[in-house]
């Protein structure tokens, strides 16, 4: 598989993960009257999940940059 196709797969995977994270029913699990570290749970969940998703996207796109010469040794 080409590095590009692998990156595509990773990003599509992240997209699907995002769709699940930010939709019903997962969202409803955090839609509670509760605080975590003094911050409302849902607010905390959304921004944390958002940040993690961005971090994963950064990692997913970066991996290709680091190993352009020997892309076949890397696994997703």
């Amino acid at each position, binding site marked *: 598989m080409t590095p590009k196709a692998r990156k*595509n797969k990773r990003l599509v995977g992240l997209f699907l993960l995002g769709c699940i994270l930010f939709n019903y029913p997962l969202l409803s699990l955090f839609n*509670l009257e509760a*605080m975590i570290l003094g911050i*409302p749970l849902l607010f905390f969940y959304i921004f944390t999940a958002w*940040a993690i998703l*961005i971090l994963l996207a950064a990692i997913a796109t970066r991996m290709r940059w680091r190993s352009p010469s020997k892309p076949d040794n890397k696994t997703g």
Partner: protein
Amino acid sequence: MLTTGIILFASFGYMGLLFAIAHYGDKRADAGRSIISNPYIYALSLAVYCTAWTFYGSVGLAVRSGLGFLPIYIGPTLMALLGWWIWQKIIRISKVHRITSIADFIASRYGKSTTLGGIVTIIAVMGIIPYIALQLKAISTGFLLINHYPDISVSYSELPVMGDPAFYIAMLLAIFSILFGTRHLDATERHEGLVAAIAFESIVKLAATLTVGIFVTYAIHNGFSDLFQKAGELAELKNPIGRESGDVSSLIFDRYLMIKGQGNSYMDWSIYVFISMLAIIFLPRQFQVAVVENVNEEHLNKAIWLFPLYLLAINIFVVPVALSGILRFPDGSVDADTFVLTLPMAEHQQFIALFVYLGGMSAATGMVIVETIALSTMICNDLVMPVLLRLPIETGGHQDYGRLLLTIRRGSIVLVLLLGYAYFRTIVEFYTLVSLGLMSFALVAQFAPAMLGGIYWKGGTRTGAICGLLAGFAVWTYTLLLPSLVQAGIIPQDFVARGPFGIALLKPYALFGLGDLNRISHSVFWSMLINISAYVGVSVFSRPRAIDHTQAALFVDVFRYSGEAGESHFWRGTANLPDLKSLLIRFLGKRRTDAALAEYADKHKLSWSYLATADADLVSYAERLLAGAIGSASARVMVASVVKEESLGIEEVLNILDETQQVIAYSRELEKATAELQEANRRLQDLDRLKDEFISTVTHELRTPLTSVRSLAEILHSNPDIDADQHKSFSGIIIKESERLTRLINQVLDYEKIESAQMDWVITSTDIKEIIQDAVASTRQLVEDKNITIDYDLNVQAPPISGDRDRLVQVIVNLISNAVKFCDAGRGKITIRLTSTDKQVRVDVQDNGIGIKAEDQSKIFEKFQQVKDPTRGRPYGTGIGLTISKRIIDFHHGNIWVESTPGKGSTFSFSLPTALEAALSR
């Protein structure tokens, strides 16, 4: 103290700074040292997505529906992840086809349709003008607010148009857009200065948001948890009854921190995510910065996480600012849309307030600039040009169209801004920032089926796209636009409350009784449903034209056909080179045309001096050049006017490939042609084989008599004392065999003569009976040798024929000797019959020999054909006789044929026209 003078100075100073940055960017670009060619600037320019709506409106929305503002930014985050996939494809397609706007993209995909381009442009203008108005409103509100510093109050009526700084800002934006957005004629050329300015604006608005967020959260309050705590206490204070005691009351959760109830359900949340996913791709300004201004596809790599990071950063303080605003102005006297600005004002932080004001301005102006340029390209290329090109006056004229084009584009910019301003002054007051923005989103989402279908599905057709777009637009108009006019008082209230004509099922906010969703979600659901159904349904049932196939294949398989030469595989046409050149000059100007053509010549190693005709490759190159300036649909019309022919050949269509009926039809044709060729080849091979066999047979036939002649001669030679009787008998055989040899050789020579058309024909009027008699006489010996009887009856009247007597004798001799060959010695019987009419005479030669198999009957007259003897495996005779006979009869315009039953004998017949008939027909 913030005086009006300082505020105005800051406003116009900021605009001046923008001009300077854009100018610097353009200068650097001209010098070949781009400042925007890196993924960070690209990601920042994508952030033009965040407008005044984000800057001011998010807080307002948060106050009204809590976390409901977030889907608008989560959608783009998700789409950015998938965007690698979609954006990359759109960017590649646009670069290959020199597409400059979303209208051009859709028009080009569906067969370069001017109709579609026009529809998309009109829809885009309708959707975007209110959005631009919203930005101008934000600028104006911002100015009014800060101008009253430190009082917090706003009233639009106090400002006449001429005294409204928003009006001047709008005009400055028009000048900016004209200066930096229409520098080149070719809209595919990037506007580097513009992008630089947009990126700068993105930095300013983010900085301003973060500044006010940090100020509110950490200066006014004591961090996030402190703020949430205080908000909870306030809610408890207002609603102390029936609430459990705790840190934070349920009320604040219900309203601001959870997804609940009408207007903020999971369904609405998902639909908002969905439309903002589409908006990030299909908003004209996003298309402009993400696709047209893209320097390098690789920049997407970083942008797909940098841009979401930007969105996260700009949103993180929205809820704190909203809560803080509620705490500061608990009586609701201040519009929540202005909290961002009013909070620092209320705290007497004039520098923060001024910075926030400029931040708001940057958010608004960035959007207005890019959106206006995108719209002006669309209006010019897909609305005005198609009409202009169809006007009769243009034909043959050699005016400078380049100047005209730029004028139209600049005019459109001014027009769009004036429309936006007018809209703002008349209607916008009735709406919040967000509701207008969301209406735009819902409308822009209508482009999605035609666009996404267009790049991933070859089956989408022009009719399908038109139907889908119009249907979606109609539903949007009914469910969002018309009701919004009710709010402005233009349409009576009953329309919304009871439905048109009192029909409750048609209530625009609850179509067919669907009342669970909020207005936007409701409209998106129905319009997308109908749009997609119409697009797919009509596409499936409509018949695509050849150009639809071509464009579909080029778009869907862009990565396969990528590269400059792509299109010419599909489109064949040649043009007169001077015509084509003058067409280019009219739109691009002489300098650019010459440069472009020189580049082409260089690449293809051509020399113009030898060229009079532009080939298909050059024609499509010219079309792409033009497409960059006037849009693909118009370019097609213009190029078609000078192109001589345009057709899809078998090769081209085969390239387009697969499924399509047309291809199947063509491939069948091709298969047929191939089959014909194969058949011809097979026959040639057969002939070749037959010729070999013929040669071997002839030599064999020659050798047999030669062998006997030689052996007899040797006997005579070595036995001089052989007795006289034997001597006579031997020499008699030698003579006979020599005659046979001579006959054979004569036959071959005759055959050769006839074949090479060198035969000398002696045409006279002759009697067929004499011919038969002569032939029988000359074969008497042959017949008697095999003890065969021969019958013929010549007591019939036969009209004279005209022909070569000797040759015709030869025909009958051939037929008789043929019959003799196939008859058994002793039992053989040959019958010759003569019949005649006024028009023709007919001769039958019947034998009772072995006969000829049906499959051989048709072949025996052909060249080199011999009927094989099944026992000997070698043919009888040379096979030349019948071929020669046929040639002779053909020459006389007669027919020759055979009827035979194997085992019972054959009848060879020929017919000849009478002399009279021959004379008449000549």
